[in-house]
């Protein structure tokens, strides 16, 4: 069951230890790797938005722009055999975990070359070779199944972990409670990463919960809940590395609340008029990329030239991927009834 992923893309060549202990190594390579991944997520996401608006794919798209530090920081140090249970806003989790961009864009387009062969809606992406679970749309469903995967991994005696991504709204659902309670009882190897972006579609946090910190919820399950600045990639990364190590060591789950913000509407068809302009602007000022870029520049790890180079390389990769997606055929209507049943063993 060991992962044989197709990762070969450049940024995966940054140094990665097998034990997820990179927090102590805030070295050059790590930081540049994180930076490159942030940029890649941002650029892919913005590209996806454009493609949607251009009518290149139908359905919908759920942009994670503004939340990249949470996503990258939490998932960057995962091993190949670790799992991610993403939600609707976590298309880029696949990118971080190493899915080829070709497949990611083919997924948006609903093409036959997508890992789900066009069956799932755009952004609801999973890719078995890298153990990202194809999500349903139903909120909290993914963290429930992801918890089950952690349960299975523990039963198998693996030291593999699961990272579960979800939003603030998901914490209101019964399935969330049942899963975290179970994870607490059995000290499952899972890290719950809540991207608290203050809104669940148009519903503000005050109508979702009486709490200020959603990380408080973890207390009800007997494991640590940690609030963290979700726009500070190093802060998220350090917290995640510790949580992952804890899970791997068999000490159970951690709930990480990344306080962050989505820049755009809930989806590309949502003008998000329910939010105050001041709120949006304030958060945009705390752009996770800009914040981290400043750190790197201060440390002399990045300059205009190297920044451009990274952007260019990624642009190139994206263009090829979009090309691939566009050229790919749609699944044939004859595939409609495929994949309902497993081939009998």
């Amino acid at each position, binding site marked *: 069951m060991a992962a044989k992923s197709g990762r070969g893309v450049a940024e995966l060549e940054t140094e990665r230890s097998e034990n997820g202990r990179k927090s102590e190594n805030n070295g050059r390579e790590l930081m540049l790797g994180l930076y490159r991944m942030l940029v890649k997520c941002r650029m892919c996401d913005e590209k996806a938005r454009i493609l949607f608006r251009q009518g290149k794919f139908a359905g919908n798209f759920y942009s994670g722009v503004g939340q990249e530090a949470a996503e990258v920081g939490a998932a960057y140090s995962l091993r190949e055999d670790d799992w991610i249970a993403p939600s609707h806003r976590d298309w880029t989790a696949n990118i971080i975990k190493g899915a080829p961009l070709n497949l990611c864009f083919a997924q948006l387009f609903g093409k036959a070359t997508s890992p789900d062969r066009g069956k799932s809606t755009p952004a609801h992406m999973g890719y078995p070779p890298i153990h990202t679970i194809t999500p349903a749309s139903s909120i909290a469903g993914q963290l429930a199944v992801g918890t089950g995967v952690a349960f299975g991994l523990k039963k198998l005696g693996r030291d593999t972990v699961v990272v579960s991504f979800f939003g603030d709204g*998901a914490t209101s659902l019964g399935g969330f409670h049942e899963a975290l309670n179970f994870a607490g009882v059995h000290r499952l190897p899972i890290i719950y990463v809540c991207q608290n972006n203050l809104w669940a579609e148009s519903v503000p946090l005050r109508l979702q*919960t009486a709490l200020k910190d959603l990380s408080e919820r973890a207390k009800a399950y007997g494991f640590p809940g940690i609030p963290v600045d979700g726009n500070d990639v190093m802060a998220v990364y350090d917290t995640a590395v510790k949580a992952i190590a804890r899970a791997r060591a068999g000490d159970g789950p951690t709930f990480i609340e990344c306080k962050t913000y989505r820049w755009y509407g809930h989806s590309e068809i949502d003008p998000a008029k329910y939010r105050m302009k001041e709120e949006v602007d304030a958060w945009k000022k705390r752009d996770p990329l800009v914040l981290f870029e400043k750190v790197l520049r201060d440390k002399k790890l990045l300059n205009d030239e190297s920044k451009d180079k990274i952007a260019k390389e990624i642009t190139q990769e994206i263009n090829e991927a979009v090309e691939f997606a566009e050229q790919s055929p749609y699944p*044939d209507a004859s595939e*409609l009834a495929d994949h309902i049943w497993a081939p009998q063993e």
Partner: protein
Amino acid sequence: MARNITMIDAITEAMAQEMERDERVFVMGEDIGLSGGVFKATQGLYDKFGEERVLDTPLAEGNIIASAIGASMVGLRPIAEIQFADFITPAMESLVQQASKIRYRSAGGYGCSLTVRICCGGGTGGGLYHSQENASWFVHEPGLKVVMPSTPYDAKGLLLAAIRDPNPVLYFEHKKLYRTAKGDVPEGDYTVPIGKAETRRQGRNMTVVTYGYMTSLCLEAAEKMAKNGIEAEVIDLRTLSPIDKETVLESVRRTNKCLIVHEDKRTLGIGGEISAIVAEEAFEDLDGPIVRITGPDIPAIPFAPPLEHAWMVNTDKIVAGMEKLAAY
């Protein structure tokens, strides 16, 4: 005065008017407040009636229904919204174990006057989790009424009837009809009776039983058949539970043939029950098999356009069914 308006406007109007008329009525659900709903069905209500009567709930369908049930038990008249029928599964316990049974288990001691608006249906590129119908589970559950309008007129009249009904009513709205279905809708107050089907087209050669979005497709198909001299009678069920057997049986007894059309999956879709009723109660009047044209037995409607297209029932498929039946 009737105006030509869309189904979504008819729905909004029904809620606004009933909230005006009856202060016990309020709406609750996800994103129905400030934002006016994912499809804008509740647009304007928040401004008009305020947060007290237009409540954005936490993301928890089970609790949306359970809290509405409780509120109805103290005499209020909640209209709860389930944003997509696909997300009704977390509310199964509240709907089936509580709403449908509280009156029965208390021998009438407690009631549940609840309207649940549920946006459903495919054909709009929504994919696996934004296209489901999921009405048939509830048709199997006595204690719940289930309706689905196909016209703006019925949308308003059925919604007003649902809100006033002292029982829990599940009101399914096909998202494809929101803005494509237009029709005359009176400005004033009226209800469409729950439990009564409507014959949308008269015909002597076969009875077509359908509901919701499929109604217009059946009518189109009927027109095509008429060109070849086959006159199909088209019955729009409107209420899925309790089923208006009488209207269906009366028609089949005249036309001697029955075609059933629905978008939902075939096995144990509502067509199964219609067919069984006809096969038991109008058998001797039948001149041909009871034919079902339905969505396929596939978990849900997939996203990729060719796949969704292959799933959906369309006029051609209905015509094919009519031709098959006409041959008898």
